[in-house]
């Protein structure tokens, strides 16, 4: 008497299914890890009328922008001492870049600086393809932040109005920089 024995075909159907399931599991797990521990999206959004100092400026403009930020610290101290904003001539005599005329300023657009009574320093570029014209607006008080604007066309007209809307309308763009230390750091203080 023979007993019937069912032998399943050696097809790889089930194995394929299991391998597929395990693969899906691994993919889901990896996606979960990436979602939880991936790099944060902390890119700073900037407005349409703004330029990012790190990405949107030429080498010469980056150098000038840094010099203006440094000069601003000194201008604020002089302002506190003298109770008035120092003139362009005085800043140049102090050897304060970018107001001083030297090989550095010549290779970075040869800007001609003037003081605007409304409370700003205007640097007219002589070579807008190397660096645009710059405007450093002083804050009303002694503890404010510098406000720096740039325009790359060759218009030499000083702005009539230092208000944000008027500057934007006249073709000026505000230069902003942000401090994002630490993409290479584990701890932030």
């Amino acid at each position, binding site marked *: 008497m023979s007993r019937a024995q069912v032998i399943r075909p050696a097809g790889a159907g089930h194995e394929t299914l299991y391998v597929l399931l395990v693969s899906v599991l691994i993919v889901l797990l990896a996606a979960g890890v990436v979602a939880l521990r991936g790099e944060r999206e902390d890119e700073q959004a900037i407005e349409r009328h703004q330029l990012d100092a790190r990405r949107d400026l030429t080498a010469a403009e980056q150098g000038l922008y*840094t010099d203006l*930020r440094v000069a601003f*610290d000194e201008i604020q101290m002089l302002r506190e001492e003298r109770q008035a904003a120092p003139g362009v001539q005085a800043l140049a005599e102090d050897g304060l870049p970018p107001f001083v005329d030297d090989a550095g300023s010549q*290779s970075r657009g040869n800007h001609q600086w003037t003081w605007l009574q409304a409370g700003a320093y205007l640097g007219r570029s002589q070579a807008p393809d190397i660096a645009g014209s710059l405007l450093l607006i002083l804050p009303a008080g002694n503890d404010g932040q510098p406000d720096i604007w740039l325009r790359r066309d060759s218009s030499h007209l000083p702005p009539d109005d230092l208000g944000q809307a008027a500057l934007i309308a006249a073709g000026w763009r505000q230069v902003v920089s942000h*401090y994002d*230390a630490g993409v290479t750091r584990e*701890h932030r203080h």
Partner: protein
Amino acid sequence: MFRSALALLLAIALPAMALADSGKPLRIGITLHPYYSYVSNIVADKAEVVPLIPAGFNPHAYEPRAEDIKRIGTLDVVVLNGVGHDDFADRMIAASEKPGIATIESNQNVPLLAATGIAARGAGKVVNPHTFLSISTTIAQVNNIARELGKLDPANAKFYTQNARAYGKRLRTLRAEALAKVTEAPSATFRVATIHAAYDYLVRDFGLEVTAVVEPAHGIEPSPAQLKKTIDQLKALDVRVIFSEMDFPSAYVETIQREAGVRLYPLTHISYGEYTKDKYEVEMKRNLDTVVRAIQENRA
């Protein structure tokens, strides 16, 4: 009798009380050589400046040691570069007796440049940490450090700000003296390359831009294939000047000089040797003079 004894006691006690009133001088930790010079010039004799890593170690390859970590426990504040050149400090502070110690981010408010080469990963989010190799970004940092130290030590805040300003002025004079030697600005075709991606900030002071960086990553030598690619690139872009590294010389640099027909000018990274107060000024003067020489000798 009693009165004179009391007077004597007071005479002895008063100076000690006055000393206690002024408080213990701050002990300020620093991570890199330029910051030792910065802080020493800001605080003069009113505080103590303590390097986190001993002289002779290369900060690019430094691994924290137990005794260095222990020293953090004796400090009041640590001044950091904070944008990628002293990442080891975070690990040291976290492992120290004072994980919550005050820190000063020197580069806060300093306009930073994007990193170049492989370090540029992350869509420009990684920045070039060598802000200490330019006079402008140095003055910005010195002002920041003085301002923050003044908050921790209000009695000396004005003293720190005045010293920072005087130091800034001396540094500005260094730059002005160097630039005065360049009677004619470099032309637009004057292109420079560097071995180490460290000098972008420095050449920005002169209105120049680094066209190519030889090292694929900070402190990593290029492979022969990468070297060939760089040499081809230097030839194609007509780069005539390459700023090499004085403190970390490499044999392959001569190959580049020979094959690409460029002239080498060694600059210092100011991260080697003893910590001294005037180190930054001395070495930066040498760097500025070298850049000026490169501009003068390669005029078209």
